[in-house]
């Protein structure tokens, strides 16, 4: 069986390092195997650009298994492309048709500055973690963790939030560039577990204030983040974040 190939027209955002402005440039991606991932397709385009002596398209990537959270771009106006619960590295070219034009843009947010082309600085997400997204005391090894009984339902709810890979798609998809799903996931993950409870109030208070300081917008319950999250994290996490803040501020 021969592999199917398609040819595409790419409109990619190009912006040099340190440049304030960028522009779209059009590239042809020819004979792309439909078994390739989106990033492998960009690799092919970059090889051709390098051969021609042009600067290759810069994009973030690492594991290419959909678990590290490094990759991500807006593909035809959708974060990580149109496939549900998929990172850009796991978006395969079989989901595109021959002759299609694809617009590729970096995440856009006041908090995420464009470093180069499709690479944005997502360190504000790290700064949010530094504001309280951790447990201060050493919780020990696996046997120590098991010393405290946790209902399976609670452990699963915490895990559903802990699957966040910090890719920033929620911010990119949010019409307000808010990081509420990210903060909601971190606060949920830690507040649901007994080891995270002692610092739960202080954590939510500092993280939510830091979110605004870093230039992220406010949540208006558009639920676009939930629809684009490659890990399928629900806005139930945001509702829990809201409850945790109310508890911390008023109780």
């Amino acid at each position, binding site marked *: 069986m021969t592999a199917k190939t398609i040819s595409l027209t790419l409109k990619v*955002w190009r912006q040099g390092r340190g440049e304030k402005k960028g522009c*779209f440039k059009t590239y042809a991606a020819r004979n792309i195997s439909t078994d390739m991932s989106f990033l492998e397709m960009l690799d092919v385009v970059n090889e051709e650009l390098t051969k021609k002596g042009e600067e290759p398209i810069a994009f973030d990537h690492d594991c290419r298994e959909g678990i590290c959270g490094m990759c991500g771009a*807006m593909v*035809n*106006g*959708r*974060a990580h492309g*149109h496939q549900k619960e998929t990172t850009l590295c796991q978006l395969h070219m079989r989901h595109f048709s021959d002759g299609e034009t694809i*617009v590729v*843009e970096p995440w*856009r*947010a*006041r*908090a995420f500055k464009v470093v180069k082309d499709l690479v944005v600085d997502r360190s504000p997400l790290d700064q949010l973690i530094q504001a309280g997204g951790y447990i201060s005391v050493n919780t020990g090894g696996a046997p120590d963790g098991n010393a405290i009984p946790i209902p399976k339902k609670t452990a699963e709810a915490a895990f559903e939030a802990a699957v966040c890979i910090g890719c920033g798609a929620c911010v990119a*998809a949010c*019409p*307000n*560039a*808010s990081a*509420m799903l990210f903060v909601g996931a971190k606060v949920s993950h830690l507040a649901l577990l007994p080891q995270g409870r002692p610092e739960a109030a202080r954590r939510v*208070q500092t993280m*939510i*204030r830091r*979110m*605004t300081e870093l*230039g*992220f*917008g*406010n*949540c*208006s*319950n*558009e*639920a*676009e*983040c*939930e*629809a*684009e999250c490659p890990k399928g994290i*629900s*806005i*139930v996490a*945001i*509702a*829990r*974040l*809201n*409850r945790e*803040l*109310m508890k911390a*501020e*008023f109780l």
Partner: protein
Amino acid sequence: MNWFFEAFSTAIGKKLLMAVTGLGFCLFLLIHLIGNLTVYGGPGVFISYVTHLHALGPLIAVAEYGLLFFAVIHVSTGLLLFIQNRRARPIGYAVKRNAGGRTIGSATMPYTGLIILCFIVIHLLNFKLIDQTPQTVFNTLTNLFSVLSYILVYTAAVIAVAIHVRHGFWSLFQTLGVNHPKYMPFIQGMGIMFSLLIAGGFGFIPVYIGFIA
């Protein structure tokens, strides 16, 4: 009290202000609709309702100042959120498609809100801030609904309220932390039902006045 204002100035605090005042307006809309249903009973029933309502005296004053207070909070916080949220993405996308979360209601909240605010001013000028002695309130109603341009403005406002409530209703529960897969679909359904009820209940009044009464 500093902690109190500080808490409400956070990103979630501002949402809470919108949610609580929004809940107040939903309750007001429901009461207002129930009261206005007396229009369908004819002039006698409607005038009797208005007379009984005004006989409540100080309770009405409390409700009016309460609603005004809520309106000031809802509009000013909404405006602040609108400005902050626009500033959070200075460079927009060349192509942006909805992923499925956005609804017509959620995408238009600031704009439907502005339409509602303008209509409330018109509505108060027509019914609250005029001398009602020369004619009955029912006559004021029929006179207004005999003007086609007013019917259009009224209908546009009713549609704006329905669209606003379609997102606002479930959204306020989400903000107050009331979201669980067990009952969120019910709350969302209630929101759609409530907005349809508002649209139908208020929207049918000019039709009734013009063609049936």
